[in-house]
Structure formats: structure tokens, C-alpha cells
């Protein structure tokens, strides 16, 4: 369960992932409340919020940056996901790519999938000014301050960059001082969108390093060869003490999570979002 106002007692949250603790989640069976709490079931959709499309920009031939402005203020962390609902009711999850603004803005990176219902519609038919309904933010893949000197490793493919880029920005803004290594992978150079922005950020922040990886046949200077996850894994002898974020292709996320753990990262320090695509769903 989750408390929407007062924090549950620390004893009720023992063993829970830190990001979930921060969001006031707790297992009901362990909690002896010490103050009043308004509670909600974990996956209860809660309130839907109205939002307007304010910007559409293509970051690469198949990645759309979609910017929404929402009406009611709500809390979120960059890297969490939001469910977007089309007027006909079709729902898909997308990761938040921007840190909270005072202007009620949300940014998403939506990859066009061949015959993908929502993504194709977002790319081709959704227009500036149109209304969408959005859920509140969910998920535990986000940055938490504290342990600012801890090294961070982030790896993702395709639009998995959306939350990772956001998390990097968040960490830097919050003064993370340890090394931050981001690995982004794609088959071809087009898929490595935002690479100029990443490189600029790497110039500006000494502790931030960006490694674009190409797994396809094209060989190019300035790119690492191979899959982002493999390049990331082989970049360090041991990942003991590292905090790791993995986003994108579900099978890769799953396997890499295990490899990262075996290389020494503590399970509590691994945050992962698998971008499951569910063709059976409407």
C-alpha cells in the first residue's frame, strides 16, 4: 500500500527499495500506523489528469519528443512512468524524460513501432493542442539524493534513453559528485539521438561520461562497437558499490540486471525498467 500524506513508520518499510520508501509505500501486513495516513492500493489508478500537447519534435527518424502541459499539479520523479490514454481509451506507458518544472510540463520520447497502435498514432495523427488523459507517475526507477559520491552506471537502448537522460540530469542538478557513466545503444547512428546534447553535457560536467554504442554493421569513429549493455558491463572490473539504472529492451534489461548483480552491484542498488511491449493488449 501507499500513504498519500504522512510517512509510514520506518519499521514498516524495512527491506523495501529506497525509491519506494521515499514514495511512502509499505506492506500492509507489517505496518502499525503511528499517525493518520490516507492510503491507496499500489496499482490503483488514482486520478486521471487532463493534458495538452504543446510540442512535437523528431529527435531522430523514429523517435518523437512529445511535450505535454498538464492542468493539476502532481509530484513525480524523472524516470518514473506515466500512462497516456488516447481519447478512444487505448493506454500505453511512457517514461518521463524531464525533471519537474514549475510550468507543469512533461516530456516523453516515443519510438515508432511498425504497426504499433499508440506510437504510430502519436507520430502521425496527434496534433499540437489536442487533449490526452494521463495517469499519475508510477515506478521506482529514479534518482534519489544521498550517497552523492557513489558511481552511477546507466545503460539503455532506443527510447530507453528517455528516463536515463532524465536521471542523469536530475543527478547532476542535485549535485551528484561521483562518476556517472551513460551507455546508449542502437543498431544504427540515427538511433543514437540527442548525442550532441550528451556530448555537450559531458564537456560541461567533469564527472559525466557518455558512450554511444553501435551494435549494427556500421563502423564509425567516436562510437563503441557492440551492444550498450555489453559495452557497459565490460567497462568496469567490478561493480561493487555502484548504483545501476537499466532501461529499454525487456530481455536485455533482465539479463543485464543479473550480470550487473553478479559483477558485484548490490541488488538494492539496481533500478530497472523493462519497456515491455504488449501486442495482445488493445
Amino acid at each position, binding site marked *: 500500500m501507499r500513504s498519500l500524506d504522512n510517512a509510514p513508520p520506518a519499521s514498516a518499510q*524495512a527491506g523495501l527499495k529506497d525509491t519506494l520508501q521515499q514514495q511512502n509505500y509499505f506492506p500492509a501486513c507489517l505496518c502499525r500506523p503511528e499517525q493518520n495516513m490516507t492510503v491507496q492500493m499500489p496499482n490503483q489508478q488514482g486520478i486521471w489528469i487532463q493534458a495538452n500537447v504543446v510540442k512535437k519534435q523528431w529527435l531522430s527518424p523514429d523517435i518523437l519528443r512529445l511535450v505535454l502541459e498538464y492542468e493539476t499539479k502532481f509530484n513525480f520523479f524523472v524516470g518514473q512512468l506515466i500512462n497516456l490514454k488516447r481519447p478512444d481509451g487505448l493506454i500505453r506507458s511512457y517514461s518521463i524524460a524531464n525533471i519537474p518544472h514549475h510550468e507543469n510540463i512533461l516530456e516523453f520520447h516515443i519510438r515508432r513501432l511498425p504497426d504499433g497502435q499508440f506510437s504510430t498514432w502519436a507520430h502521425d495523427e496527434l496534433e499540437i493542442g489536442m487533449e490526452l488523459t494521463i495517469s499519475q507517475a508510477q515506478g521506482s526507477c529514479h534518482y534519489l539524493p544521498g550517497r552523492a559520491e557513489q558511481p552511477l552506471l546507466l545503460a539503455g537502448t532506443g527510447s530507453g534513453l528517455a528516463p536515463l537522460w532524465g536521471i542523469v540530469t536530475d543527478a547532476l542538478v542535485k549535485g551528484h559528485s561521483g562518476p556517472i557513466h551513460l551507455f546508449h545503444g542502437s543498431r544504427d547512428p540515427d538511433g543514437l539521438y540527442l548525442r550532441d546534447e550528451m556530448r555537450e553535457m559531458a564537456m560541461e560536467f567533469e564527472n559525466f561520461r557518455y558512450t554511444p554504442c553501435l551494435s549494427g554493421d556500421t563502423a564509425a569513429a567516436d562510437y563503441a562497437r557492440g551492444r550498450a549493455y555489453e559495452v557497459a558491463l565490460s567497462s568496469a572490473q567490478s561493480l561493487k558499490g555502484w548504483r545501476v539504472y537499466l532501461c529499454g529492451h525487456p530481455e536485455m534489461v533482465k539479463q543485464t540486471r543479473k550480470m550487473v548483480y553478479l559483477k558485484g552491484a548490490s541488488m538494492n542498488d539496481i533500478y530497472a525498467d523493462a519497456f515491455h511491449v504488449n501486442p495482445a493488449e488493445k
Partner: protein
Amino acid sequence: MSATQDTTLNETLFDKIGGAPAVEAAVDIFYRKVLMDYRINRFFENTDMDTQRAKQKAFLTMAFGGPNNYTGTDMRNAHARFIKMGLDDSHFDAVMENLGATLEELDVPQELIAEVAAIAESTRNDVLNR
């Protein structure tokens, strides 16, 4: 902790080792060892990591003498399908070895390690369905 434990003056083994936080620290090390141990990792392959980890915690809590509700029959049922996969004494010994190495890595004193080993050892016949 349960009421029965509060009434004893002596600290329980579970408390001496460090209670739930010690389980939390141990599971990370122990589960990694198990997954990397070629003698036994095949038993742990096809399961979801989060579920596995929860079960490893149950195992460690039990071995540390902590609060749990497992009976001998539960142990038999939990491991019955691994018997069909060939689970035997050699695998049990490997788990014991990983358990001991984990506690050593955490600097748990030898006499406590021996107590933990004794508890785990006492489940051998149930785990191996004998």
C-alpha cells in the same frame, strides 16, 4: 520480534547476528555465490530474481534462527521438484559451504557460524526428502 523471544533474557542467535538487516546484507552475498556456483546454479536458473531473492531471505532467516513458520513438511514440499532434478547431499554440502563463506565475509564470529550451520544441517533429511 515475537513475544516468546522477548521473554528470554538471553539474546537469540538471530539477534546476535544482527536480525533482519543482517539477512538483508547476507542475501546479496549469498545469492550471488549460489548463482555463480556451477555445482548448484542450475536449480536456481529459471526463476524470477525477485522471487528467488525473497526465498533466499526466507532461507537465511530460518538458518539464523529467526522468526519463521516453516515445518519439515514445507521443506519437503519446497524441494521435492529438485529431487527429481537430482538434488542430493553434494548439493546440500555446496549450499552449506556458500552459507559459511557468506557469514565469514560478513565477519560473523566462528561460534555463531557454527550455530547457523547446525540449524541448516538439521533440515538435511527434510530438504533431501528422506
